[in-house]
């Protein structure tokens, strides 16, 4: 039906999918956060555009106007924007500390290092043959 008339929803859907795709597909932790922000922003658009009433004006009382847009979704989304900023800031702070701890912000690099840590834990638990009677098969490679 009215595909062009609903353009605001198209923008929302496209942005949402772009953001979601970036979060899933990218390895770089910063890029993931960018995707997450785009994803959240699409929801801001959803709320903001739903408050708009066709032909209406800003919700400031005035004798010359009868029709006003709904201000409530806009106010709600102000809160959500603040939450979004806090989330992004928190995420970036974490990335800084991850970089300090791992020397990389690529997910695969970090995973390799984590797996090495886990392998060491494993060797420590089952590595030395005489140390345990539980799993004394040849697992100490």
């Amino acid at each position, binding site marked *: 039906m009215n595909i062009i008339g609903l353009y605001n929803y198209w923008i929302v859907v496209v942005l949402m999918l772009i953001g*979601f795709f970036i979060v899933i597909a990218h390895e770089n932790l910063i890029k993931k956060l960018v995707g*997450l922000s785009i994803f959240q922003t699409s*929801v801001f658009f959803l709320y903001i555009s739903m408050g708009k009433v066709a032909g209406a004006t800003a919700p400031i009382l005035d004798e010359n106007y009868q029709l006003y847009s709904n201000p409530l979704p806009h106010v709600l989304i102000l809160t959500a924007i603040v939450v979004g900023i806090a989330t992004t800031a928190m995420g970036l702070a*974490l990335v800084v500390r991850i970089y300090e*701890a791992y020397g990389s912000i690529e997910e695969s690099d970090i995973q390799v290092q984590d797996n090495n840590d*886990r392998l060491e834990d494993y060797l420590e638990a089952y590595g030395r043959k005489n140390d*345990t009677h539980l799993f004394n098969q040849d697992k100490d490679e």
Partner: protein
Amino acid sequence: MTAHLPILQVIIPLLAAPLCLFIRIPRIVGIFAILVSATAFLISCGLLQEVITGGTLSYQLGGWAAPWGIEYRIDKLNGYLLLLVSGISTIVLVAAQTSISKELPENRHTFFYTAYLLCLTGLLGILATADAFNLFVFLEISALSSYTLIAIGTDRRALTASYQYLVMGTIGATFIIIGVGLMYMMTGTLNMYDLAERLPAVYESKTVLSAFGFFIVGVCLKLALFPLHLWLPNAYAYAPSITTAFLAATSTKVAVYVLIRYIFSIFGIEFVDMSLPLGDIFLFLGLTGIFVASVAAIYQLNIKRLFAYSSVAQIGYIILGLAIGTELGLTATLLHLFNHALMKAAIFLAIGAVVYRIGSAQLSHYAGLGKKMPWTMAAIVAGGLSLIGVPLTVGFVSKWYLVVALLDKGWWPVAVLVLISSLIAVIYVWRVVEWIYLTPPRIITDEIKEAPMSQLIPIWILVLANIYFGVDTRLTVGVSKLAAQSLFGVN
């Protein structure tokens, strides 16, 4: 004054959190945090008492009438959970005093308590509010502070775990506000009870259906339902022990509450029945979750990770109760919410005490600790028995109700599967017992001794609660039944 109790519960920790930053001296901040949490606990006792005798309490924020202003509404369901969350939080904070002194550098203690109180605020707020958007705000307050609580530790893997949780948690929360927004489009209201009245008129619309879909996926991410649980094991395993004990006992439980509230109080059972085969989906995901996570737990080397996987499995039982879709099933769900919080808080606090003494959560380092730390180890075993569902523990009570509800519905194959899954729990708990009691010690030191009293007392309060509520079920079963009845009665 008493009229303001529903809001004070949330406001006191909220205001106390920034005050911690002014006090600064870690020891005093710690005691201050205990006092704040204990106040919230006392208030919630009063509230539950009032709700049971006098019925639902409604509080209008700032005196604005309900559909326009924000309403806080305490009924039997959230009164019961408020008691649980504030109670567990207080007990955990007592143990925190000594535990974090070992696990966190001195300069982070104040921040830890600040984030902890904020997280408590968020959780209590989610429970108390009757406004769909306000719920989202509190959800994010609790989520952001739990990311901090996880990342605050010294293990670098905690950072990636926290990052992963942040990404998945934010996606979940965003899905929830999409759901809220779509409902607002159809009804023009955000108050939960107003929504419940207006939604039936638009049940047929696709918008409401997609709101529901977004909502369910978002909340299931938050409550770590299999297969959306990926953030949970690492977050629990590498966070400081106190964080793990607090989050494992409360945060997923509160997310389950949100799910129950939306299904029963907002959308209503009829809508859920006619729109989505939610019962079947939950049945399938719940059962798969129980088996996959329990088996994964067997192979863990880190004891915190082991019990984290067990948490995912327990969430499966909780969801299974919901899948049954009867009053009995809901009672079992609510019981298991409460009981699982008690078990996991006890276990993770006991693990925290071990980390305090030996500085490690590797299962292999537990070898021979049964002799060195008998009381702490006994607590872990008691918690483990409760997870399995041995009679005289709380785990037995909730599994019993779950199986009875399943048989009542005629789903005996599922009941059999639930019993089989308990046997898998026996295996992973046995592995822990084997390391603790039957393996000769690896690290030969005489310094390892029993955990300090400041940790043993909170641990044993929880263990005794595990046993007490396993024998005397009047409070837990009574309130769960009342809450389940009122949820089914409303719709």
